[in-house]
Structures are given as structure tokens and as C-alpha cells.
């Protein structure tokens, strides 16, 4: 007895085809077949509902399938796409219940015991599960019953979310036709030979007699017909990394085309994260190359994000800076997931840029002017007149107490970087008298104050020593001149403004 009293079965029919349609949403409404093998011996391994309506079946030759349905779209089987879709379905269910069981591609059991207080009645939970699966691009059927077996049988007939009331499993399953289920080889034929058409008739048979005639398959058939679980519930634990992958049928050798693929992959990945109430604070992009190698890029996000657009922008800039060496044949995107935090806004305070917006803008600015030219700064621990250090941009809304009330009206400098070398004529006392090549070709000094001797780093190779003058020129500019005492040249250092 594993303690599960109410369980929902989430099942996606024709899962391989549904996984491909998830990656290419345009294929959802048109006949689609998944094929494997090498031409001309390619065979259909899965088909969506539209293709089955056109008599396309599994294990059918590709040529025959196309003959039956000329509009049939074929796609090769892709383990990456199926694995991503399988994880997506698990993630969607995990967002509603912490106890789920992975029973294979497209089949998930969800322990919903105790969720009624949080989410509502069984039918509400069933609808929410169907909605969660749809949010990650998978059309799922959902049935709720007292056992996994009963729910699994019921979900085959459930065109909309359905619920078997507690205790009514046997009565509900009794009317299910034997032909509605898949049976091991030999069992269906034997049951037909015995004239047994419904699960209720199987359940009425003696287990010992069934075991004697059909062996273990007979016992399993009796368990299914009785709606009995014989294996314990095996909870699924999500791994710390969330991955979404897409193999390509064609080679991509341009960044815009690669970005288009990444956008779709990111949309699927973020939909999964959102369904599980998570966000990503790091991404790892693994690009499969036509040369057989891999191109791996890691990206640390400035803040946890769950929106595809800013992430795509950051990835695009990363790829533009370091593009793959050869054509791309597949992409896999792995997100490091963290819980989302709700940050309440505070009325009456200055707004600050959202970190995700800021990260996007910073990435674009870096692409525009270079990383060394963007950022916040702080005074450096140096006496050099143009010393500063880079620092993190503060975007919190907490006012600095030490700055409150300051009202210094300081005459600003406009610093020339690098300082401009000029010619200066001095008078008999050594004070600047005429300046050549500053802001105008020739300018006479009206007033000047100085010199102030400053020096530093004398212990190092980058030692400096200079004398500075504040000078008012007759071209109506006020400048700071500096005489480099080591090189003996005059510099236009800054302009007062």
C-alpha cells in the first residue's frame, strides 16, 4: 500500500508526433508522421490524429503513407525533441503537485491526494493539469481515479478531463471494451476466442484460471480489468538543470537563422520554467556542429529571468561575439533554475530599471561601444587627477544618508582624454602668457593661478609629476594646463565648464 488515494493520469497521445508539433507549432493541424530508417525503407513510427484520420498507421511504409495521405508531412524521429517534450510534460505536472511519476514518454501519474484544499475538486485539478500541459505545447488527456491503473484505462477514453468517483473504479472499467486497450501478444486473441468483450468480464474471471491459461500476461490483464495497482508509486525528482534541445534537419550557417531556432527553444524552455514557478539565473548553450564538435557558451544572467526576449538578446550578443566555427546541426539550451521571488513595489520611491531590462540594454551598449566604455565608476585610491575605478551600477531605491542635504555647486571640469599636447610661451616669471594649439590656434592668457605641484607613483614605472595652472584665456575659455615635469611638455588637461 503506497498511500496514494487519488491519482491523475496525464497522457499525450502519439507522443513523438506531439513532441515534433511542439517544436514546430505550424504542424499541429496538418497530417504529420514520424518516420525512421533510410530511404526507401523508411517506416512510420508515429502519426498525429490528422494523419490517422487519413488511414496512416504505425509501421506503415513511408511510400504507402504518402499514397494514402498526399498532404502528409514527414519528420525524422528525434530523441532530443522527444526527451525535451517528456521533461516539459513532467515539469508542467510538477508545477501542480510535488509527487508525480514518470511512466514513460507522454505518460505521467500525478498524486493529487490533498490538493483539493489548494486547487479545488478533482475535476478542477484535471482541467488545471490539461491546461498546464497545453502551456508547454502538449495536448494532454487527463483522467482522475483512485488507482493509477484505473486512471490509465480511463484516460484512453477521455476526450476531455474526466473523473471516476471514489469507489466507482470497478463499475466504470467494467464497460470498457477490450479492444480499446493495448494487450501483450496473444492475450487479445485469446480473449476474443473466449468471447470476452469488456473489462468487466475479465474482472469476473478467476485469477488462478487466467494465470493457468495465459501466465503472467493473464494476471496482468486481470489487474488492469480490476483497476488494481501492483507496483509502488515511484516519485520523480527533477534534476537541478532544465534542458531543451532541438536537432535540425538542415545545417544553419548564419546567426539570424540560429537566433530564430534559439527563440523557439527559449520559448519552450521558459514556458516550462513558468509552469513550475521557476526562473533561470544562468544559461548554457550547447551547439552541435556539422564538423562533429560542439560549441558551448555559458551565460550568467544578471537576475533570474523567465522571459525569452531578454535571454535571446543576451544569447545573440554572446554568439555575435564568439560565433560557432562551422554550420550548426542542433542546439541544446540548459537553464539553471531558481525559485521566482516576488518583489513588491514601494510607492513614493524613485523607480529603478528592472534588472532584466538593464541586462539587455547593457549587452547592447557593450556591443555598441565596447565593454570597457560602459559601467558605473567610483573614485580610485590614487592621487592621479584622472584616476577612477569601475564598479557595479546601483539600482536600489535606498537613498544614501551621507548624500542627503548636500548642495555643493561645483564648477565642473571637462577632462581631455588623453590630454592634448600644446605649446605655451611663458613670461619672465615662468607663468603662462600665450597658449598655442589649445581650443583656438593662439590665445593670450588673461589670468592664471598656480602652479600646484602634484606627483605620484614614484616607486613605480608609471610615475608622474606635473605642475598645474588654472588659466583664463582671451577666447573666453577657462582651462587647466599641466606641465609634465618628466617629459617637459605642456598639456591641455581640462576645461572648466
Amino acid at each position, binding site marked *: 500500500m503506497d498511500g496514494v488515494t487519488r491519482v491523475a493520469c496525464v497522457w499525450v497521445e502519439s507522443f513523438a508526433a506531439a513532441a515534433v508539433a511542439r517544436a514546430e507549432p505550424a504542424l499541429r493541424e496538418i497530417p504529420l508522421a514520424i518516420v525512421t530508417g533510410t530511404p526507401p525503407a523508411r517506416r512510420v513510427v508515429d502519426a498525429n490524429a490528422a494523419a490517422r484520420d487519413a488511414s496512416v498507421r504505425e509501421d506503415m511504409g513511408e511510400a504507402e503513407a504518402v499514397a494514402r495521405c498526399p498532404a502528409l508531412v514527414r519528420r525524422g524521429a528525434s530523441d532530443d525533441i522527444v526527451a525535451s517534450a517528456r521533461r516539459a510534460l513532467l515539469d508542467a505536472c510538477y508545477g501542480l503537485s510535488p509527487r508525480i511519476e514518470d511512466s514513460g514518454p507522454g505518460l505521467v501519474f500525478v498524486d493529487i491526494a490533498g490538493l483539493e484544499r489548494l486547487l479545488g475538486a478533482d475535476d478542477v485539478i484535471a482541467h488545471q493539469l490539461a491546461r498546464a500541459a497545453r502551456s508547454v505545447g502538449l495536448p494532454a488527456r487527463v483522467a482522475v481515479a483512485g488507482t493509477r491503473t484505473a486512471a490509465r484505462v480511463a484516460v484512453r477514453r477521455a476526450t476531455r478531463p474526466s473523473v471516476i468517483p471514489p469507489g466507482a473504479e470497478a463499475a466504470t472499467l467494467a464497460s470498457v471494451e477490450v479492444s480499446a486497450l493495448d494487450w501483450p501478444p496473444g492475450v487479445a486473441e485469446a480473449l476474443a476466442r473466449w468471447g470476452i468483450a469488456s473489462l468487466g468480464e475479465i474482472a469476473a474471471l478467476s485469477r488462478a484460471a487466467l494465470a493457468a491459461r495465459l501466465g503472467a500476461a493473464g494476471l496482468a490483464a486481470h489487474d488492469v480489468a480490476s483497476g488494481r495497482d501492483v507496483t509502488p508509486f515511484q516519485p520523480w525528482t527533477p534534476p537541478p538543470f532544465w534542458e531543451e534541445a532541438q536537432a535540425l534537419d538542415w545545417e544553419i550557417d548564419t546567426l539570424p537563422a540560429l537566433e530564430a531556432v534559439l527563440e523557439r527553444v527559449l520559448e519552450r524552455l521558459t514556458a516550462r520554467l513558468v509552469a513550475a514557478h521557476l526562473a533561470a539565473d544562468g544559461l548554457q548553450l550547447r551547439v552541435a556542429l556539422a564538423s562533429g564538435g560542439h560549441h558551448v557558451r555559458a551565460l550568467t544572467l544578471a537576475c533570474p529571468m523567465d522571459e525569452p526576449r531578454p535571454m535571446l538578446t543576451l544569447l545573440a550578443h554572446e554568439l555575435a561575439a564568439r560565433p560557432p566555427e562551422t554550420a550548426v546541426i542542433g542546439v541544446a539550451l540548459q537553464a539553471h533554475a531558481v525559485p521566482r521571488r516576488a518583489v513588491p513595489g514601494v510607492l513614493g520611491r524613485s523607480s529603478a530599471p528592472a534588472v532584466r531590462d538593464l541586462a539587455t540594454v547593457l549587452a547592447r551598449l557593450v556591443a555598441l561601444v565596447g565593454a570597457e566604455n560602459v559601467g558605473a565608476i567610483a573614485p580610485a585610491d590614487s592621487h592621479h587627477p584622472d584616476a577612477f575605478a569601475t564598479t557595479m551600477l546601483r539600482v536600489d531605491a535606498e537613498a544614501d544618508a551621507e548624500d542627503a542635504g*548636500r548642495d555643493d555647486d*561645483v564648477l565642473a571640469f571637462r577632462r581631455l582624454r588623453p590630454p592634448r599636447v600644446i605649446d605655451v610661451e611663458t613670461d619672465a616669471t615662468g607663468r603662462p602668457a600665450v597658449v598655442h594649439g589649445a581650443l583656438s590656434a593662439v590665445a593670450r592668457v588673461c589670468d592664471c593661478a598656480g602652479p600646484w605641484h602634484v606627483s605620484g607613483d614614484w616607486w613605480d614605472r608609471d610615475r608622474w609629476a606635473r605642475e598645474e595652472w588654472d588659466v583664463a584665456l582671451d577666447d573666453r575659455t577657462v582651462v587647466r594646463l599641466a606641465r609634465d615635469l618628466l617629459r617637459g611638455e605642456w598639456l591641455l588637461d581640462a576645461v572648466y565648464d
Partner: protein
Amino acid sequence: MTQTSWLQRGRITEIVGPLSSGRTSLLLAALRAVTAAAGAAALIDADATLDPACATRAGVALDRVLWVRCGGRREAAVAALDLLVRCPGFALVALDAGETPPRLSLAQAFRLRQAARRADVAVVLVGRHRVAGAGAALAVRTRRQELAWAGPRRRPTRLIGMRTAVQVIRKQGAPSTDREEHWWTA
């Protein structure tokens, strides 16, 4: 009118004037007002002329200012301005276009004005000449009035400060007659 009462979020303000007329001092006053209120500011510096020590003395919280240096590339400065104005959350986005400011077309200026309004950000354009034309809600011209020196008249020992006049040359919806003076301490 205080030194920064002219700053309006969602509007474009232009400060024009020659060198040594006090236009950069006025910009630093605006940055100080924004950062003192814990707001985020961005300064696009076309010629990388900001002096961090001077800005710190003026009371600007430099760690709240995103400083973008464009190395003299005016088109990059305009592109950076366009990016930052569209990023909601900044209280002030300033472009110091230097001595050869670019001239925005009428369509560009109005798009900039629209973006500033949407993001609710105060845009300040500083340069020798006007940049945004009719897109600006307020334009002021700075002019040096007086320099003050310490020490003997013939051999001063120190520059004390500068008095500048600020003349409103365009004010949307009002006659442009305001004029005031500022004193800046060196």
C-alpha cells in the same frame, strides 16, 4: 526656480552654450539631484570628458550613474541614447554631445520625445548647439558672466568660482523670457 527645478520626467531638456559657460556644471547639478533621490541616471558622454573627481565633489553618486563613453563617435552616442531612453526605470538620461553635437532630424527628435514620455525619463541634451530642435520641451543657453580669483589682481593665487547666466531660449507652451544666474565654486 532652483537649479534643477527645470528637470522634468518625460520631457527633453537642452542645455547649450560654449565651453566655460557652465553647461557641464548644470548637468552635474541635475545628476546630483537625481542620484541624491536614489534615482538611476545614465550619462552618454560622446567625448568621455566627465571628471569623476569633480562629479564626486559636486555630490553625484557615481555608482548610480551608468557612464557610457563613445570615444567621439556621435552616431554611437545617438544610438546609445535611443537604447537608454527606451529602458524604463532611469530617472535621467543625459547626452553630453560636446562641441560638435549631432543634429537629430525632426522625426528622430519626436520619436525620442515619445520614448521619453513612455519611459517617464528626463532626457537632458548638452552641447554647443541644439540637438533636438522642436522635440525639446525646454532649451536653455548658458553664458559666462564673471570669474572670481583669489589673491592679488595681477598675480591671482587661486580660481574661486564662476558666475553664469542661464537664459531660457525655448519653453513649450510659455514665452521664453526666464533668465537666472548661478554661482559655481571651483
